[in-house]
């Protein structure tokens, strides 16, 4: 009796699965989502419209999908990984083609009830495919150049496509998320050291060549990089968003101004207040206490995912869960760093809180996979 056959028999079946859900994770997800609804209600000036109602509908839909995904055994999803990846890359190509044949640059496909962003979808399907790849690959071969090149190509294809949209935030998420799965799977650290070293070297060369006869970029490109890295040099343009968002954050103080009392968002000083910058409203209205609480909730979600990933003996389940955890971490870390002025503004939503259907659905599907791994873990 093989290990897998053994585990199949010992996993719960039917409605029993409900009892084996990771309920702590469910509670955390619902809690954070509710914080999101609350904030969307606040930034709309105390109204369900225009953001809370659709977000709530998508959450209900997404939660149902989560349960469905959770109840389907994780090995089914492993077998679906290649297909899922293929479909999402095709969709990425589709929006690319639609943009180029004159429907205007767009990042989404209209499904009627929501606009699906293939780039959001790719964040999960890439992790799934890489996990399946390393599950299939003999761990001893994982550091061989050819077997390193394959996942690199698998990562770079969707990264390139999202970069063309242009969606820098998603591209970074795909790149770092994918690389993290490779790292977790045990690819030799020298590859990472080489890539990081080369990257640092290139950036250093670019910066140090500035002003010298052999400078690598044009002057205007340097200026663009300057404003990207330090938006405060352009206070009414690119810097406006980040200045206003820091004002909002900072003015929250210890306990905040109180629910619906944030002046920065209600008076429209904040940009993108319902999407990428929603954290600033939370921080303004609930202060340091509110902000650190959200950070804590995210950390707990992360922790439960990591525990699930480490407890399972199934390599696919383990890698996919940990990959999802890393992706989830990248979401909120980049978003928070961005609105707090620690990182350039690249357009990454705050997971489960920012308004946006695709990200919400994709995250819930991802947590469905985590739950599936949890339910169907070998015992």
């Amino acid at each position, binding site marked *: 009796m*093989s*290990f897998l056959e053994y585990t199949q028999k010992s996993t719960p079946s039917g409605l029993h699965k409900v009892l084996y859900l990771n309920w702590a994770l469910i509670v955390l997800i619902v809690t954070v989502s509710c914080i999101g609804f609350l904030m969307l209600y606040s930034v709309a000036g105390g109204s369900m419209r225009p953001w809370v109602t659709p977000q709530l509908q998508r959450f209900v839909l997404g939660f149902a999908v989560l349960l469905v995904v959770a109840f389907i055994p994780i090995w089914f999803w492993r077998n679906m990984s290649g297909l899922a990846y293929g479909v999402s890359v095709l969709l990425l190509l589709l929006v690319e083609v639609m943009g180029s044949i004159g429907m205007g640059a767009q990042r989404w496909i209209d499904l009627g009830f929501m606009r699906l962003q293939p780039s959001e979808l790719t964040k999960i399907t890439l992790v799934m495919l890489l996990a399946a790849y390393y599950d*299939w690959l*003999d*761990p001893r071969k994982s550091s061989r150049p050819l077997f390193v090149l394959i996942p690199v190509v698998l990562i770079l294809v969707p990264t390139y496509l999202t970069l063309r949209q242009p969606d820098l935030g998603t591209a970074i998420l795909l790149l770092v998320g994918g690389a*993290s799965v490779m*790292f*977790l*799977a*045990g690819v030799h650290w020298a590859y990472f050291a080489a890539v990081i070293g080369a990257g640092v070297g290139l950036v250093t060369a670019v910066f140090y060549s500035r002003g010298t006869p052999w400078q690598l970029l044009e002057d205007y490109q340097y200026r663009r990089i300057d404003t990207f890295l330090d938006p405060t040099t352009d206070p009414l343009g690119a810097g406006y968003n980040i200045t*206003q968002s*820091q*004002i*909002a*954050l*900072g*003015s*929250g*103080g*210890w306990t905040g101004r109180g629910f619906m009392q944030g*002046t*920065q968002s209600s*008076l*429209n*000083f904040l940009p993108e207040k319902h999407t990428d910058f929603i954290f600033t409203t939370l*921080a303004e209205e609930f*202060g*340091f206490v509110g*902000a*650190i609480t959200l*950070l804590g909730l995210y*950390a707990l979600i*992360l922790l439960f995912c*990591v525990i699930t*990933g*480490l407890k399972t*003996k199934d*390599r696919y389940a*383990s*890698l996919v869960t*940990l990959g999802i955890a*890393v992706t989830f*971490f990248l979401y909120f*870390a980049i978003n*928070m*760093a961005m609105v*707090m*002025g*620690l990182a350039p503004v690249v357009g990454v939503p705050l997971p489960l809180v920012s308004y946006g259907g695709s990200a919400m659905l994709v995250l819930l599907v991802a947590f469905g996979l985590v739950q599936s791994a949890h339910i169907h873990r070998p015992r």
Partner: protein
Amino acid sequence: MKRSQKEIEDSARKVGRRSLIMGGAMLATGAVLAARMRYLQVERASDFRLLAEENRINIQLLSPARGLIYDRYGRLVAANEQNYRVVMVRENADDVDEVLERLSRLVNLDMGAMARARDEMMSRAPFVPVTIADRLSWEEFSSVAVNAPSLPGITPEVGLSRVYPLGQDFAHITGYVGPVSDYYLQSSGDTDPVLQIPDFQVGRYAAEAQLEQDLRGEAGTRRVEVNAAGRIMRELDRDPATPGDDVQLTVDAGLQNFAQARMAGESASAVVMEVETGEIIAMASSPSFDPNLFVRGISVADYNTLTEDPYRPLASKPVQGTYPPGSTFKMMTALAGLEMGLIDPEELINCIGYIELGTRRFHCWKRSGHGRMDMNNGLAQSCDVYYYELSQRVGIDAIAAMSRRFGLGEHHELPLSAVSEGLIPTRDWKRANRGADWVVGDTLNATIGQGFVLASPLQLAIMTSRLATGRMIRPSLVRTVNGVSARMDDGGDLGLDPANLEIVRRGMWSVNNAPRGTAYRMRSEAEGFEIAGKSGTSQVRSITMAERATGVLGDDELPWNRRDHALFVAYAPADNPRYAVSVVVEHGGSGSGVAAPIARDILLRAHFGEMPPLSAYPVNQRRGIEEMQDQLDLRSFETPEETGRVQT
């Protein structure tokens, strides 16, 4: 693919180790995030709180309502009306042209105004509101307010704007207000923050300018919450503006209107004073202009019409115009002679039509001569020879000193623009200004109010008041400021012998009431209201010998601007003086024929407080007077006018 248990556990252990490294990195990142939160939200919270307040709170100045100006009976002379206007802040509009285009569909904007507003917006400092359109109708104003969301940067506002309901009657008294110009800011040294309010108006001329500090009031402030688009969301608190002080003038709007109307068509001025108090109850300057034109920003065409008019409507003739006073000056010589005991009023001086001084002849206005004249006849018939003779005894120094006691050649403090001092020449003055010594001929010219002597109608009215009372009457134009009396005391007794004053007054009475008086025709027959006056006809040219040889042209044959000025000064009633008047008609011709009837009509109007009855005039003139009265274009006042009695 099958794998051994060991392989599976090995790879799982490796995943575990790598997870630990990743987890550590995540933890470190999380710690950085938390630290940053603490830094922003705890350590720098107060800085950011302040910035947030600055973001959302705007302090706005509230414009004070300008003090109102009333006439002596409480009729509004300068008021404030609501002005609906639309202002725009360029920075708050995404596309200025698009917004203006949309606005032009709601309100009537001509292309010129739109272009001007656009230029102003581009040249002004950022975030300074610029008026796009004002004096909108209520319908236009409300349609802009309703459509405000589609007009970013546009704010409909209600402001106050000055209005002068009596139009041109008070143009030279109240003056007018206008926008705060850069020149004003630099030259006045005025740093009142209220001046930064868009479209704030400051006094630019006459009383509006001179009483600016009383009328202006103090700015209030309000703190408002604004959104990112600069639109006001709500008012947080308000410190209301203090309105300016109301000013009550001494002028009677009814009499003022009568005087303006009476002089219509002439280039003339008249000043009416209450002799006891010095209060100016009318001060007319004809032609005048509509001060409302200046408040709204006068068009170039209108302005050119005003400046090119030979009758100079923009000049305030009663205080700015100076004229040779002609024979109205003779009282000064007479009083100087009497006070010095150099002439006995009964002494007779023979007038043969001229006197000879060296090789020059000085003519009397009456070529055939007056014959033997005493002082009374000399005044009544305005004999020049009598005064040539007298002035040689008295000398210019004594004449000049007496004139100054009567306010000629002196500055009089009134809240008006460019009040002139006139000119009383002395030996020193001539040496300093003309580089020549004083000669007797200069004295002879001066004594009949010619030559260098210049006086404004205001000064002549003051002189007449002082003659009528023997006191140093000072003119005033403001009765109360904010209800507090602005009354000035007179300067006390002139220190003249009452008997001498009486002799001169009798002479002035004779001018109007003795059958041979120069203005006998212009007497008053109103019960208890005899007029005592003095005519003056002053030349504006000197008659050359060549001209005299070919025959002097009659005044009517000369071009208008070379004709004689017609002057008349008078007070009434002669036995108990209440009003003094001076009338100057530029190039009007004869003083007794042109200025005297105007002076009489104004005095009678002041006396009766309404259109004087025909019974106040000599019987044979009543038909002509009736015709004149019918032609007057008078304003009707809503508030019933009190009759001429002055309340003190």
